[in-house]
Structures are given as C-alpha cells and as structure tokens.
C-alpha cells in the first residue's frame, strides 16, 4: 500500500487515539510508577503504568522533573545569550542544537553563511549524529541486559569524537560553537587531519558494532515484532527522525529542505519495513554509516575561506520585527526553533520544537498490550534526552 493511500483512506473516528484496553479477568489492576528514579528512564521521567498481570493496560507519561522554563529564560536575554543554553537541551548533541538555533536566527535576519562554515557545520553535525546513534544503540542494549559491553564500544568511539570537539570548541559536550552567520573558531589543518584519522576508523567500528549486535539472538528475540508503530499514525502524531523512518516513511529534512549544503553530498535514507524496535535499532546503525560517508566527503571537499559572514553583527544585534521557523534533521528528529522578534535585542518569543517530547506522544500506543519488560525497550527505542523533553 502506498503512503498516499494510507494517508487518504477513510478512517474511523478516534483512529489516532490509543485503544482502550480491558483487563482479562476480574483481577485487580496493579499500578506501577516506573520512574522518576528508574535506571531505564535516561534521567528523571515517570511512566504511570497499569498492569493486568504482566500486560500493560494503561500508560501515562509524566513530565516536568527537569523543567527550567528554557523558553522564558531566552526571552530575558539577547539572541546570542541563549546559544550556550541550547547546548543543555539535548546534552548528547549540543552541536546540532546550536545549528538549529543559528539556522532559525539566520532565517529571521536573512544572513548568509560562508561556505567553509557550512562544511564545518556538516562535519560537526554528522559527527554528533554518529555519537548519538551509537550511544543510543548502546543504551538500548543495556536495557536488554547487555550490561556495559555494547555501551562501552559506543563510548570508546564517542570519546574519540568528543576529543575532537574539545580541541576545536573548548568543550566536550557543551560546545557553544555555532554563531549567527558562521562558526566561532576556525578548524586548523591539524584538526582536520585528526578528524580524518578518527573518521577512517569509524567504518570498522560500525562493522564491529553490527557484528556484535545485529544478528544477536537475544536482541532479535527481544526487539522483533515489539513496539510496532504504523506509518500513518507516526505522521499524524508528528513523529520525526529515525523513529519515523523506521516506520517506513521517507522523510529526512536534510533531503526535504536542503538546508545548509546537504544537496552536495551523496547519502541514502534508510527505511524500515517492519516498524518495530529492531527496525529503529537497525535504522540508527545504517544512518550512522551514511553519516560517516557524509563526513568523509565533507572533509575531502572543505574549502578555505572565512568562517563568519562579514556583515554579521555580534554587538547590538537586533533583528527586524518578524518571525521565522527554522528546522534541521537532528539526530533525534526534527529540531526546530520558532522566533518572534519585536525589533529589540531579546527575542519576543523563543520556542523550541523538541523532537524528544513529541516522539513520546505515541509511547502509550506502542506499549499497550505488551509486557513490562518490553516497555523499557520500547521507551529506549524512542531515544530521548530529558533535558530536551522538559526544557
């Protein structure tokens, strides 16, 4: 069935709501609070689960434990002042957060980004995606009981990439690197050499990782056929990123919006066929390989030149009144920033479109009817970071 058919066929009312589950017998339901301090929740997050024996009858996510009103804070400071705070949204992927914010401001002001800066953004953004996808697979394996090993394989590579980030931006995780109209510091030839060296080792890591996990019997038994998400529901619920593509929907913002210079690189968009947890795992592994390809191409083609728009203003930066929505394909999904300027030095409204939060919309739908142990897996396959969910 084509996507268009799935989207436009007549559906019954309430088709996009989670089904109401009935307990089997007349035994009492057991209500369990998974979290906020549960090792599987990747932070402080709670799921109020109602169980009929082992079967999940109801699941309500509870948010807000890490809420600091990031959006309100941003209204009280300059545009540039929020840049370091974007690092703290999804703290695994600070560079893509920087990029999305810079892109939204550039849309608002119409600034141009020099070519070298675009290449640097692509290199750093894709390295971030590699870090995110490998760690997220590692965490998923951890949740299946593979204590340590896969996660340590992922963290070994992550450490090499974080060293690169540190030598370029000064910080391993809170990079604060992008600026409106370019990047903060230029990469030296020595850095580019070091990056090439790290990237040369990455395909070997991807092979090793896939060999370790891809055909592992336990992983297959636990993941296949679990947590199925239908494509039409995924689109309707605003699911983006690897989650959406694992449901077989070909939608990658790098290909759709052609932001930055992505149309210059040759890469493919992997799609899932079974829409389950295993597909989400595999999609991340395949995207990781595509990201390695992009970084290789970018490192080969990176031109010399300035890294900042010569007309960019650091001091007295006041965009003209108006608004802009800018988005990128973040490692977790569509990361967008919506800014409203009233002509002042601070944004009048600063909104983050958090992929982690919106991807949790269908958590209940995916978990209903499965076992408690599978809830941990399904939740892990969504790949969230609480810093972004709660903002």
């Amino acid at each position, binding site marked *: 069935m084509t*996507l*268009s058919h799935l*989207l*436009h066929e007549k559906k019954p009312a*309430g088709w*996009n*709501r989670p089904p109401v589950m009935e307990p089997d017998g007349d035994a009492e339901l057991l209500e369990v609070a998974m979290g906020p301090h549960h090792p599987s929740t990747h932070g402080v997050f709670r799921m109020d689960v109602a169980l009929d024996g082992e079967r999940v009858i109801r699941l309500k996510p509870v*948010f*807000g434990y890490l*809420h600091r*009103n990031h*959006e*309100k804070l941003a209204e009280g400071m300059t545009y540039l002042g929020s840049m370091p705070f974007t690092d703290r949204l999804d703290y695994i992927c600070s560079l893509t957060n920087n990029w999305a914010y810079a892109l939204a401001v550039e*849309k*608002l*002001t*119409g600034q141009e980004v020099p070519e070298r800066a675009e290449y640097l953004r692509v290199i750093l953004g894709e390295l971030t995606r590699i870090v995110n996808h490998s760690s997220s697979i590692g965490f998923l394996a951890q949740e299946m009981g593979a204590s340590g090993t896969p996660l340590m394989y992922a963290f070994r590579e992550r450490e090499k990439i974080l060293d690169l980030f540190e030598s370029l931006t000064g910080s391993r995780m809170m990079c604060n690197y992008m600026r409106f109209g370019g990047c903060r510091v230029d990469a030296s030839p020595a850095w580019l050499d070091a990056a090439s060296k790290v990237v040369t080792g990455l395909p070997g890591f991807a092979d090793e990782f896939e060999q370790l996990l891809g055909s592992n019997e336990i992983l297959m038994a636990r993941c296949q056929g679990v947590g199925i998400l239908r494509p039409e*529901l995924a*689109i*309707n*619920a*605003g*699911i*983006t990123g690897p989650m*959406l593509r694992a449901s077989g*929907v070909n*939608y990658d913002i790098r290909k*759709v919006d052609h932001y930055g210079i992505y149309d210059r690189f040759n890469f493919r968009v992997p799609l899932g066929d079974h829409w389950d947890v295993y597909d989400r795992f595999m999609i991340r592994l395949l995207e990781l390989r595509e990201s390695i390809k992009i970084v290789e191409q970018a490192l080969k083609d990176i031109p010399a030149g300035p890294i900042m728009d010569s007309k960019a203003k650091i001091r007295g930066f006041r*965009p*003209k*009144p*108006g*608004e*802009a*929505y*800018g*988005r990128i394909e973040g490692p977790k999904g*569509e990361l*967008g920033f*919506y800014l*409203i*300027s009233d002509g002042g030095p601070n944004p009048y*409204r600063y*909104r983050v*479109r958090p992929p982690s*939060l*919106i991807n*949790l*919309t*269908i958590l209940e739908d995916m978990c209903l009817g499965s076992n408690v142990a599978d809830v941990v897996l399904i939740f892990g396959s969504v790949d969230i970071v609480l810093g972004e969910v*709660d*903002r």
Partner: protein
Amino acid sequence: MGLGNGLKTVEEIKAAIEAAVPGAGVVIVTNPSASRQHSLRLSPVHAIAIATFLRDDAELSLDFLSNVTGIDWPDKEISEKVKVPRTVTKTVDGVEQTVEEMVEETRKRVEPGFLEVVYHLFSVEKKHGPVVLRMSTGNRADLVHLPSLTPVWRSAEFQEREIFDLYGVVFDGHPDLRRLLMWDEFKDHPMRKDYVEPDDFEYEPTPHDEVLARAIAHKAATERTTATAAADLKVGGQ
C-alpha cells in the same frame, strides 16, 4: 509570496480554504522578516473544519503538524496625540470673544491583549511547507477557549497541554487536557509576560546587592508568618 518547494502561495491556500469551508473568514498575516513565512489567521469557529480540509485535501495534504506555539500579547497602552476642537474665551483687540480652537491633546488608549496559538504545518507526502496557522483568544482572562486540533493531528496533544499549562489557553475538545510540565497543584501560568515569581525559592547563602534586599524581605516575611503561626498555636493550645 511563494513558500517554495512547489507549494501554493498563502493567497492560493486562503482561496482554497474559502472555497471548501464557506464563511471561513481567513486573514493573511504578512511577515516582514527575511523568512517570508506568512501566516493565516483562522476564526476559532471554523478551525476544525479548516484543519480537516488542509489535512485531507489531495493537493495540499498537510498531514504533519510540526510545531504548536503559544504567545502572550499583554494589554498595550498606546498614547497618541490627537487634535481636539475646544471653545476658549480670548480677548482679541480688547473685546472678549469665544473662539473655536484646535488643541493638541495626549490620549491614552489601552489595546486589549490576547493569547495566540501558532501551528506550523508541513506535508510528509508532498514534502512541502511550512504553512502557518494562527488563532487568538478573546482576551487573557475569561475568553481563553480555543478549539483543540488534537483530534485532527495527534502531534498537538502534548504541545497543546504545554500551552494550557504555561499560558492558560483552554483547548476545547482536547482528550486529556492536564498540565504537562508544572505540577497539578500549581496555579499560575509561568510563560505569560506578566508572571511574577513566587517569593519562595531559596536564596543564596551569601546574598549581596539585589539578592540581599530580597533575602531580607523574604526573611522578614517568613519570620512574621512563623511568629503568627506560633501565636496561633498558643491560642489554640489554651
């Protein structure tokens, strides 16, 4: 006013909506910034019908609601200079006369504030967008109801809950309208522009300047309440 990627212009979308939903009354809001993302203001009465049309129309096929944003526009006091005719008594050439004269006067007018909700739509099928919709409430106090678009696009579920929580917009027809980020007992709406932080957070151990002043005020207030509470206890005990 093209939106790029082969999408219709806002004018064409407006015409399409008005052809499909009679009396929709869509207004184009132009965006002066470089992004050129113009938006369409909907009247809340027709919002569900328009949203369903935009999602199901074969040509537009806006199947993906990406982002829902709440905005607070507080009451704005506008002072403007107006010329008003006034009769004044004047002595002209030794004779007292009543003359009509134009006098400049500063008048203050309050433009009532409102809450606004903005929806950013894209199409996964046709790969175009964004189409921006906006809806506003009557005021910021009692007329804060808007229709929920969650039945049309599920992705609005958490985002509308967040706006209900942080701005106080009540979405009619939302299947599960509860606070999302703040706790259930919380009373105010922190994202509103006139929100005042409650005086209940812990001050730093070595306060100085502004924080010192607040710490002293805070301490005085809490000591008074403890003293009153102790006195009450005593009275109650006897």
